[in-house]
């Protein structure tokens, strides 16, 4: 048997993966592209070519416009929260203190929960009748009657908070690993120079973790853009449609309205957004830090 060259061996090892990954990417994407130009009739089991009708329909859909606003709010709030929380957590975990190893375990726990479990935990935390937050506020005497936290005005904010609760641990660990690459000497020098905490953060820590923060932000954007389970299970998109993001609306168009062509057309918006973000992410990886 002839010896394989490195390149041949590499291609031999990767080929199955290429085929697998290409199939699972191309099939659903191609199929949904085809669907988006057709109108499917389930009873007769037929599909009729309708051109760009499904795409034009989006312009007149007020529910879609509304869900866009919800998505934008959710994505921005979740991303900002994830960056802030993961940065603060990482800065604290980088300190030396007693109980540090326990805190490290506690911090990772929210990440271990499925998006579904997070949604249910959120529900139980905020419920009007038996939610923990209401019980806590009542027992401190701040309120008498239970508050409906998941109301039409603030439901999206609570979704963003719980989504951030779920995702931030990963960002925290990522930023922490960047902090750990900073040479101790730099801090010593800064202390000798009498630099304050904030000037040490700005001049020593920040340049080392800037990149990690950026990556965390882009990933948070990607994850929150495609997120659907948390709104589905925590608020059900309600009250009414007040917390229905595009993804959940899309899901409804598919499985409740069974308007497959139109649903496929909508799904291209989410996909396009995620593809753009992924390209940005990839560019970031290749940029010299």
């Amino acid at each position, binding site marked *: 048997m002839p010896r394989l060259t490195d390149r041949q061996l590499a291609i031999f090892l990767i080929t199955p993966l290429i085929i697998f990954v290409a199939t699972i990417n191309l099939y*659903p994407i191609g199929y949904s592209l085809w669907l988006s130009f057709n109108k499917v009739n389930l009873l007769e089991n037929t599909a009729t070519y309708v051109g760009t009708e499904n795409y034009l329909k989006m312009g007149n859909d007020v529910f879609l416009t509304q869900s866009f606003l919800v998505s934008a709010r959710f994505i921005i709030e979740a991303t900002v929260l994830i960056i802030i929380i993961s940065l603060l957590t990482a800065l604290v975990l980088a300190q030396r203190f007693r109980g540090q190893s326990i805190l490290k375990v506690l911090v990772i726990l929210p990440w271990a929960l499925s998006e579904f479990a997070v949604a249910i935990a959120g529900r139980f935390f905020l419920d009007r009748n038996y939610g923990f937050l209401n019980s806590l506020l009542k027992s401190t005497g701040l309120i008498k009657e239970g508050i409906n936290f998941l109301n039409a005005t603030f439901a999206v904010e609570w979704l963003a908070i719980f989504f951030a609760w779920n995702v931030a641990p990963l960002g925290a660990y990522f930023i922490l690993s960047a902090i750990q690459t900073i040479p101790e000497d730099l801090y010593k020098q800064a202390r000798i120079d009498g630099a304050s905490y904030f000037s040490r953060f700005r001049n020593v820590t920040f340049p080392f973790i800037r990149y990690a923060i950026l*990556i965390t932000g882009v990933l948070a954007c990607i994850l929150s853009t495609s997120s*659907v389970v948390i709104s589905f299970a925590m608020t059900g998109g309600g009250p009414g449609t007040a917390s229905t993001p595009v993804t959940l609306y899309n899901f409804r168009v598919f499985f409740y309205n069974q308007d497959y062509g139109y649903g496929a057309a909508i799904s291209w918006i989410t996909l396009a957004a995620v593809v753009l973000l992924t390209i940005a992410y990839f560019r970031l990886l290749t940029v010299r830090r």
Partner: protein
Amino acid sequence: MKIRRDRMLVYLAAILIGLWSIGPIYSLVIISLMDVRDVVAGYIYPYNPNINAYLRVIGFDVQGPYGFLRAYGGSKQLMQGLLNISIIAPTVMAITLIAAVPAGYALGRFRIGRLRSVLIMILLGTRSLPPVSVALPYFFLFTQLGLRSTLQGMIIIHLTITIPIVTWILMGFFAALPQDLEKAARIDGCGRLEALTKVVLPLAAPGIAASAIIAFLFSWNDFFYSWLLSQGTSAATYNAQLSGFFNFQNEPAMFAAAVTLQIIVAAIIASVLQKYITQLKIVDPGTVVVE
């Protein structure tokens, strides 16, 4: 004095972060340990704690503090779901490793020029494909192939997510391992494959173990695809069966208990995994590989 104040601030921040991290989990667990009446009464600690809700969820009638309580009506299906996911998740884990270890090794270690950038881009794309965009095509495909509501189908759908993620992580992990030992082995006459099995794999064992856990955790935690393709059938996973509790809004304790059972496994796994997370560069293996 100033140092003392700084220390105090660190501890205060640590406590706040700890509370933030476990608050919602704590509230879920205490609700699962109380009778519905005590839950509604608004206790912030488990008052009259008992495991009745857990017993009812797994199918027992119990004598509660306020009277007789029947077992959860869907407990049989829920236990079937537990059995299903206990078959699915380890299988997903094993197949993921078989596919991802060689691929991750090749992507992380070989210089194969442009092809690698393209592959990494595709991997990244797959990893971030929004579930909603693929839901309907998969739904139709799995229905046509007869894979919907079968365990094989569930395993396949989970693999479409775990293989790209784990390959991505292992790629970074292999790239970060020191190259010298492998080179030395090759100079001593080992072939690539021999060097891989005798030198690199033992070195990479912790990373591979952690990736296995991640694949398991994904499968164990998946709700969307399980719900989409198996809900209401005999192949439904534990998570998919949990959605049945939406019809039991007046039984928060049982719902909380059922979710807690699911979380416990995930939490144990994550606390084991925690030590390896920074080492693994889970968030961003690409930084190691893409130059």
